[in-house]
């Protein structure tokens, strides 16, 4: 069972690594952020599988932290993008 779980983790990581090609090629920032999202989710899956394989309970907390903060980069990206074009949230620099 442990071997199988480690193998599944390796497979998922490999798949998600292929998604890196999309990071490298773009053609836009949105595609790159999407690839980072995929990596985040795949990473959480890999952490869960590896943690179950080794029986170390604390890895669940690592996965919890990753899950909480996974989308922050995407939020920051969209926020910064929308600050440059009219959009949902306007920002104003007052003196």
């Amino acid at each position: 069972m442990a071997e199988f779980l480690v193998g599944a983790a390796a497979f998922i990581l490999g798949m998600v690594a292929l998604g890196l090609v999309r990071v490298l090629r773009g053609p836009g920032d949105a595609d790159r952020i999407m690839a980072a999202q995929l990596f985040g989710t795949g990473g959480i899956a890999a952490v869960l599988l590896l943690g179950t394989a080794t029986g170390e309970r604390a890895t669940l907390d690592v996965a919890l932290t990753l899950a909480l903060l996974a989308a922050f980069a995407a939020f920051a990206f969209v926020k910064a993008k929308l600050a440059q074009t009219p959009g949902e949230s306007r920002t104003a620099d007052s003196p």
Partner: protein
Amino acid sequence: MNLLLDLWTVVAVITGAFFFFAGTVGLLRFPDSLTRLHALSKADNLGLGLVVLGLLPQMDSVSAGLKLVCIWLLVLLSGATASQWIARTLRHSGSGP
């Protein structure tokens, strides 16, 4: 009973891994950003969800199992919101339909 649980784990994890595979293929091969976003969210929801379902029998306490489900729900929440926002950015920048 143990054998049944192990079988459940193996089947669910393999199906979850397949959805990650499908998500990656979509990310690489779909023609434009919005369709790629669609592929990405499939991997998020289904791939991780099936992996979590598969790992539930392997947990040794109810609280660990609850934590697993919590992790999946959090990923769903933040993933859904981020996808919506990325789609909005794409529409503003004109690469949408």
